[in-house]
Each structure stands twice: as structure tokens, then as C-alpha cells.
């Protein structure tokens, strides 16, 4: 039976951990009562832990707003060829299959406006700058099943990459970061390069490798007997990769330089900062090396300053200072990035003042 208590639970479920936030409610203003990072070992233990965290009775599913990161998730920017669209009623599915090699029948896809992340009207819309966002249906299904096995009932299941883009765009606005921002999302199997400027997502490019590609280099550099040992060292806090870092990230840097260089030439804009999402805590050196190599700043999110503008507050018990960039996905899930509503709020604030 569904637990009907009004408290909210936000869940950011990545391959590294479950980040959880218990809040006063689901809608803004949101008051964050407690946050926790949890790595589930088995469903029963996870269910018990999450239920206790959510302060809910046993035997209940916990309604939650969730973000997930399917391995083969995709965000693909494209410009609509209006003439082709008018001629072909299957323009979008054909484009998805032919240009991005995504099988529409096996995927969950949403078409959003590249300008503000809002839902595009595919039939009547005249928007040209759009993006496909989604992932394989099987992966969404598996992640949903995982959450259910932990006693979490997803009242919404979002693509974490998308909400993070929205959150980071909003953060850049709040902090007055006018230069384009590079959002790099590296996971074990692959990576995503996203470049945005103000509300506009300009670049969305997948990179076919992720952390897994670095284990052979570590193995070779440290003379380890297998990649498993290299992986253990990579994720442990025992080894300082600062020196070896540039070598490990050489391949990644090449990809990034190609993307950023092309973007800067095309737009005449210089990328000002980089943000790495989903970065495990012990890999913070990655950001520093990439930023140094690309000549940009690393965004270290100032959560208190940002969430205030989003009408989100922390309870005194929450150690805000300990929240690093990894929490951006979870807190972005709580944000409202509707420009129209914010304008209205501003007008209201202005009139009340």
C-alpha cells in the first residue's frame, strides 16, 4: 500500500550510489530535512534502510521523485529540417534512427526544446532547435524495478542528466556565469559532453568510453596483474593519481579538446568553466586536471547560494558544507526551471515590495 504521508523523498540513483533527501514535501518551497548517501547491497537491507530514512511505516512503498542514469542514455541535439518534416510524417523517428542510431521502438524518447528543456510540440510546433532525450526502454525498466525492490515507488522517473543540465543552467544564471559551460558526465561505460550557454543547450555529444577505459592504463603504469586490481585502486582513496592523471585522461582530453575547440570556433565563445557530474568523491582530481588542460575553471557548486533562489532550504542538521558536486543531480531534481513561472514570481516579489 502506498504511504500517503506528505513528506517528500528525492532519490538520485546512479551506478555509484543512491543519494537520498527527505524533504518537507515534493513541491516548492522544499525544506530538506536530511540527506544521505547509500550504496545498496541487497534489496531487503536497502528497503529497511530507506524506509527508516524516510521515516515511514513498514510494509509501504515510498513515493519518490527519482532520477536515474541508464547506461545507454542519450541526449542528442538537432536542428529540424522543416521542409523534410512537412513531407515526412515519421520525420522524428526516422531522424532518431538514421542520424543517431537509436531504435525508436526499443527506446523511451522525449523531444524537448533545446532552448529551455521544455516539451516540444512535434505536430504543430515550429521550433527548430530540439533535442532527443531518453534511453533504452529495457534499461529504464530495470532501473525502475531496482527502485521498486528498494521499496521506492517512483512517482516520477527522470533522466538525471537532464535535470542536472537544468540545475546547472539555473546555477550559472544565479552565479552570473555568462561564458558557456562544459558539463561532462563520465560513467563507467561512456561519457557525455554537454555545452550550454544561458538557457540554450548548444552541444550534446556522446563519448563511447568512460572510466572503464582507464583501467588498462593503470594496470600498465603500476604493473598490476589484472584490470580488476586496477579498478580497485582507481576507486580507492589510497592512491594519489595526481601525477598519473594526465596520462589517464589523455584520451578523454583529446575528445574534449576536439569538442570545445570546434564549439569555440563555431560560436566565437570561449568556454568558461567545467562541471563534472556523477564524479565519485575520490576522483576529484579529475576535474582539476581537465580544467587545467582546457584552461577553464572548475565549478564547485555553492549550494546555499543557489538553492535559496530555488526556494529550497536546508534543516540545521544538514551539513551543507560537506555536499560536493555529486549532490547536484539530486538537488537539481528539486528545482523548478520554468522561466515563465520564475518571471511571475519576480513580478509578485516586485509588487509586494
Amino acid at each position, binding site marked *: 500500500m502506498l504511504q500517503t504521508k506528505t513528506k517528500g523523498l528525492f532519490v538520485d540513483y546512479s551506478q555509484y550510489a543512491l543519494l537520498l533527501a527527505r524533504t518537507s514535501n515534493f513541491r516548492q518551497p522544499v525544506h530538506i530535512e536530511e540527506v544521505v548517501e547509500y550504496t545498496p547491497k541487497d534489496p531487503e537491507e536497502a528497503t529497511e534502510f530507506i524506509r527508516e530514512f524516510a521515516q515511514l511505516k513498514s510494509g509501504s*512503498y515510498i513515493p519518490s521523485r527519482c532520477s536515474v542514469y541508464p547506461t545507454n542514455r542519450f541526449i542528442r541535439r538537432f536542428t529540424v529540417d522543416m521542409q523534410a518534416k512537412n513531407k515526412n510524417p515519421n520525420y522524428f523517428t526516422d531522424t532518431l534512427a538514421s542520424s543517431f542510431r537509436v531504435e525508436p521502438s526499443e527506446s*523511451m524518447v522525449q523531444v524537448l526544446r533545446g532552448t529551455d528543456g521544455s516539451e516540444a510540440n512535434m505536430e504543430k510546433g515550429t521550433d527548430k532547435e530540439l533535442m532527443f532525450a531518453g534511453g533504452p526502454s529495457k534499461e529504464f525498466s530495470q532501473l*525502475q524495478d531496482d527502485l521498486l525492490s528498494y521499496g521506492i515507488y*517512483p512517482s*516520477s522517473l527522470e*533522466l538525471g542528466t537532464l535535470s542536472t543540465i537544468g540545475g546547472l543552467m539555473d546555477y550559472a544564471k544565479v552565479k552570473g556565469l555568462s561564458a558557456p559551460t562544459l558539463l561532462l558526465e563520465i560513467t563507467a561505460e561512456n561519457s557525455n559532453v554537454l555545452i550550454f550557454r544561458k538557457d540554450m543547450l548548444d552541444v550534446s555529444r556522446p563519448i563511447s568510453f568512460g572510466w572503464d577505459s582507464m583501467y588498462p592504463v593503470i594496470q600498465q603504469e603500476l604493473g598490476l596483474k589484472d584490470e580488476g586490481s586496477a579498478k580497485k585502486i582507481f576507486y580507492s582513496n589510497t592512491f594519489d593519481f595526481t601525477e598519473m592523471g594526465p596520462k589517464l585522461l589523455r584520451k578523454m582530453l583529446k575528445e574534449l579538446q576536439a569538442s570545445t575547440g570546434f564549439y569555440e570556433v563555431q560560436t566565437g565563445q570561449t568556454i568558461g568553466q567545467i562541471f563534472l557530474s556523477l564524479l565519485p568523491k575520490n576522483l576529484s582530481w579529475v576535474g582539476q586536471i581537465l580544467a587545467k588542460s582546457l584552461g577553464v575553471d572548475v565549478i564547485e557548486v555553492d549550494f546555499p547560494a543557489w538553492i535559496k533562489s530555488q526556494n529550497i532550504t536546508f534543516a540545521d542538521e544538514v551539513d551543507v558544507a560537506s555536499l560536493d558536486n555529486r549532490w547536484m543531480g539530486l538537488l537539481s531534481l528539486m528545482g523548478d*526551471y520554468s*522561466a515563465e513561472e520564475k518571471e511571475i514570481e519576480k513580478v509578485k516579489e516586485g509588487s509586494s515590495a
Partner: protein
Amino acid sequence: MKRSKKEVQPNWHPNFRIQSELPDIKPIRTGFLINFAAVVICIGLAFMVFQQEMKRMSLANSIKELNSIVQESDAANSAALRNSRQFIQEVSKIQELEAFYEAPFIAYQFLIDLAEIRPDDLVYKSINVTETMRMERRNSVRVFRIQINGQAKSLQVLSDFKNAGANLDFIVESEGTVNETISPRDENTGVFPFTLVVDFEPGN
């Protein structure tokens, strides 16, 4: 058509939830509600059918019982009907007798009187006594008419007979009127056919 605010997907927050694969977590499951409603309807219908059947059976039993009573009472009823018919016949006789006794004159005395006042040269062919009712100021009044048809040898005889009749006691008492109608003399027999009508109201 403009979509309501509720339907608008928030920016950067598209929902990829697979609703069809989620468990039914409603406090009362839809399936249960449907089954419950179906069971309630079935029970209701069964109850209605049962009620109708009981009513039908009850009516059939009643009809059977009543038929049996009708059959049992048939002989008695026939006898009662015979009695009733007989009673009605007897009643009419009694009523006739009552009317006879309630008449303002004594019948046999009237006949004796008629016999006594009849002149030798006058014969009676018929004597009718009728009783009718007429309304007088919302009250019904009994009216008697004695009609005597006969033949007289001469008009004098008839005139004498009329005077004698008008002087009969009950006619005098009831202030009755005597009128005669005389037909022309019969050429063959030489007598006058006449009708004498006496009207009177008892109690006058």
C-alpha cells in the same frame, strides 16, 4: 486547445516512468473495486431474481390454495346460489303480498263493493289496479289507479254506476276522482263500451 497547467511538463524534468510496469499501490486496488462492484451487482441481481422467484412461488401457492378453496366451495356456492335465486323469488312474492296488504283498500272488500254496486244492465270486462309513484316537492307520493272496462246498456246505467263508485268509502276518504270514457254504442250488441278510471292517493 490550451493545455492545463497540470498537464505541462516542467522544463528539464520529463518523466520516463513506465506506468504499466508499476505495481498497483492504491489503498483499494482498482481490480478489487471492479471485482467488488461486479460481485455486488451479481448479488443484487441474484437477490432480485430470488425475490421475484419467491414472489412468484408465493403467488402460485396462493393461486393453488384459492383454486382448492374455490373447488371446495363450489358445491356450497351452487347451493347458496340456488337458495339465493329461491330467496329472490320468495322475496318478490312477499313484496307482492306486502304491497297487497299495504294497499289503501281491502282487495276482497273492494271486489265485494264492486259486485254490490254493479247495476244489472252493466257488465265488467276487466278490472286493473295499478300503483305508481310521483314526485311532489321532493317527496314521493303513491298514486293508485283503478281502471274498469265494461259495457253498459244505457248511459243512465253507466252514470248511476259512476256515482255509486264515487261514493265508495275508500274513494271518498282519499278524495279520489272518477272519470269515465264512453265509446259509441256498439251497433251489433247495442251496448256502450266504457272505461271508468278512479285515481286516488291514500292518506289524502
